[in-house]
């Protein structure tokens, strides 16, 4: 857990081991809301963004 993750009141960022399927980060990468920059290139960057839900 990094300092910025701990400090953030909105839980805006999550760090972890993407190779560990039980970690929160891995779950967010798999989640439907998760996307990568330049996803069509299939290079799986380290950073996964979560799409914002606007209709709830």
């Amino acid at each position, binding site marked *: 857990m990094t300092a910025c993750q701990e400090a953030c009141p909105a839980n805006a960022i999550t760090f972890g081991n993407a190779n560990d399927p039980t970690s929160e980060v891995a779950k967010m990468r798999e989640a439907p809301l998760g996307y990568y*920059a*330049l996803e069509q*290139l299939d*290079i799986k960057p380290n950073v996964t963004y979560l799409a914002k839900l606007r209709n709830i």
Partner: protein
Amino acid sequence: MDYTKAPPLVEGNPSLSKIDESIAKPMEKFPSKKYFMALSVTLTMLLIGAVALGYTFYYGIGMWGNNIPVGWAFDITNFVFWIGIGHAGTLISAVLFLFRQRWRTAIARFAEAMTIFAVMCAGLFPLIHLGRPWYAAFVFPLPTQHGVWINWNSPLIWDVFAVSTYFTVSLMFWYIGLIPDLATMRDRTTNKFKKMIYSVLSLGWRFSNKHWQHYEKVYVILAGLATPLVLSVHSIVSLDFAVSILPGWHTTIFPPYFVAGAIFSGFGMVMTALIIVRKVFNLEYIITADHLDKMAKVTLVVSMMVAYAYVLEPFIAWYSGDPVDWFLVLMRATGHYAFGFWVMVSCNVFIPQLLWFRKIRRNIGVLFVISLLINVGMWLERYIIIVTSLYRDFLPSSWHIYVPTLTDFGILIGSFGLFFTLVLLFARTLPVISMSEIKGVTEGAHPSHHPGAEHE
């Protein structure tokens, strides 16, 4: 033109001692004013490069025009350019030897020396373009305390091995070939200091039968080792680009395209240098118009291969339907660097078409100009490939133009200064033509009962 007999590889049927004398003359005679003028020009260029490098080391890579996204520009352009120049030397020296093309004899020593100097120039660039060049040794897999290996997945590391292998094998091949000539120089020279150096370097060569047998065997083996390097080294260098995902770089044609381009640019530089050398040192009867004619033909062949790649890349970009790739190909021809692109195409495709004509191939002046234009065109080719793919990559938000700085030009000039200084020093200290091999291809060298069977 009598086509029933092959033209003699050494004109005028000189005696063996005349051959020795004319090849050794540049080393024995005190250099002329022209030589010192040439040397002062090249040393000035080298000095400009040293100053530019000093600025780079002191103030950092910010002195160059590199930015994000154009992280590679003159540095890698120059690296690929100089490695490419080296390939002609190895082709002439090793490949033509294995193909038993005896006309290579007059030009092989010089071409191989050019390879070594070109690889030395090229090797500087990966070192200086590091942000912290004092860590340059870490490109090698040294055992270190931090316990982390170099990145085996990276083509930049494959380059390290490819280029160092290439340099080592070329140096060995060149040196072994030099041994009989160093022995000749040892026997000819009267200067005590030179005699000591030549004695040490000639490794006790006695011109005995056994020595020649060993020599021929090692020479063939080294030629066989050097030959695959012509294909592999520039393929590895091209993978610097081809294994990336950038549009314009991510194409499988790069390895053969780069190898053909390297041979092309190398022959351009060899022709440039040889035309000067044969004139300055009065060696026109050994490096004949016939040799230049044959080199021009090889140049034409590889120019056609490069032309094919110029046609194929846009075609595949269009045929693939990938809008990003097609956009990039259009950008090359019509974007900010379009002028450079079209100069490149003219110099590499249209101008070499003149070499179809025997009159042109035999006209030394025109050949010299064509070879200079080839050098320009091939440098531009690497520049266009690198900069256009970087300045227009995937996201428009990353786009940024690249403009070279004076420091960039200074280092480029310095690399030419280093190369030509080394060539001039080489011409003064070592025979630019292989004395022993040339004697083997003069008329009468291989007497036989059948007339006209002396050389193929």
